[in-house]
């Protein structure tokens, strides 16, 4: 029984069956990769997990509790965090403030009326945010407006924000897209470290096979809305169907 159980999930957009009969079980404290061609329904699946979309059929449960019918913020408070495919950050706020918000969400819950507290007096949250920024190598940008960062930096910021909430399940949608090679490697290391240090489960969507094969313990291949295979990385690498539908012939696997 995994920490995340997806059973028979289906989702339709008008005439398009984006997901059909998806079953997925993610074991606790593992890194589970979801790969597949463009438009396979990977992001849609993640959207169903965090309440952005409601599946037409099937069930999704996290840690034994159903997430369906809950609002996004409730799901997040249950311990699921997500990094989006196009960075979703607080563009008008500084990098530091971006980092503090998840800190407050973690400390104070979904809503706290504290207009008389002083922002600068929240030492715990600040310290935590500082630490997370250092970890991500964004410390020198802390006073910058998040919107005016380059895109690679935005993505790193978003990962840092999600991590600083201490989620139990971290959903990553192409976290290293657009990241420089060095930073991609740093991110891989960071995720590995986090996974080992904390009790955290990671589900990751990536098209960068270097990242997938360095991190994943199990891989699900999704194609046209249904899982094609689910297996260990080594088996996936050699899987002829996967090579044909997704990896392509020339792909050198790191």
């Amino acid at each position, binding site marked *: 029984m995994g920490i995340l159980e997806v059973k028979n999930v289906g989702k339709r957009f008008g005439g398009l069956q984006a997901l059909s009969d998806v079953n997925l079980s993610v074991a606790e404290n593992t890194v589970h990769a979801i790969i597949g061609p463009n438009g396979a329904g990977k992001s849609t699946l993640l959207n169903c997990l965090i309440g952005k979309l409601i599946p037409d059929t099937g069930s999704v449960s996290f840690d034994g509790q159903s997430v369906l019918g809950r609002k996004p913020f409730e799901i997040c408070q249950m311990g699921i965090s997500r990094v989006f495919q196009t960075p979703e950050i607080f563009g008008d706020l500084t990098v530091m403030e971006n980092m503090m918000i998840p800190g407050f969400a973690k400390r104070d819950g979904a809503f706290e009326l504290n207009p008389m507290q002083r922002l600068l007096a929240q030492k715990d949250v600040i310290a935590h945010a500082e630490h997370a920024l250092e970890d991500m190598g964004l410390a020198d940008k802390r006073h910058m407006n998040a919107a005016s960062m380059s895109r690679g930096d935005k993505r790193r910021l978003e990962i840092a924000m999600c991590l600083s909430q201490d989620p139990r399940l971290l959903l990553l949608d192409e976290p290293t897209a657009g990241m420089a090679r060095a930073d991609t490697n740093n991110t891989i290391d960071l995720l590995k470290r986090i996974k080992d240090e904390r009790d955290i489960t990671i589900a990751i969507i990536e098209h960068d096979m270097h990242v997938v094969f360095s991190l994943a313990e199990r891989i699900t291949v999704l194609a046209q809305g249904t899982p094609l295979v689910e297996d260990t990385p080594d088996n996936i690498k050699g899987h002829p169907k996967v090579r044909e539908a997704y990896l392509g012939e020339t*792909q050198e696997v790191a």
Partner: protein
Amino acid sequence: MNVKPDFSKGINHAETAPAFLSVWDMHAYYGESYIVQGISFNVHEGEILALLGRNGAGKTSTLRSIARIGDPQVTHGEIWLDHQPLHKMSSHEAARVGLGLVPEDRRIIPGLTVEENIKLAQIAPPIGWSIERLYDLFPRLGERRNQEGVTLSGGEQQMLAIARALSRDIKVLLLDEPYEGLAPVIVDEIEKTLRVIKEQGMTTILVEQNAVRALQLADRAVILDTGGIVFDGSASEVLENAELRAEYLAI
């Protein structure tokens, strides 16, 4: 090898072969912040130039400056495309001269369907590939022609962005991380396409984080760091120079 060329005296045009696109001492600002700090380079007709550098090096800003978007604001410098002074034009004029940009965040127009997104690109001359030909290249787009563009999956959006550029008869294609978010098979596919259109004489500037991949495709490479050029030479040179790769590309 020419790690830090001295452009302060300007480019000696007599020394180089006639350039198709030439950027000369370009400086650009985002509001108060000085981002593009005096960039000069040449691209020859039918060449693929890889523009490389770390995150925040200024690659996107450089492409945007060439495309005359206005943000960042180019305060100094000249850009010539096929004997036309781009630096005196606005972005739509530059586009009509034959400049095509695939922007890094794809910029699919909300509210328009896939097909409308392409049709939009074919309103202003010159018209390039036909819609049918584009659908042949990207069958997924053909299948989704009446879906709203922004609801496409990430990879599909990328295809649309490239298709949109090709639907115009452009002379120079500026690609800002075109492979991002694409499945490896599709990347192969696009790479093939780029080679094909290169054969047909297209000049391309390719910005890509997967430097190795880009360098394999490119003829020449320019490496940026904090808004300036730190290398300008042939692509194979970079592939061979481990020191350079380690310093500026971390590979």
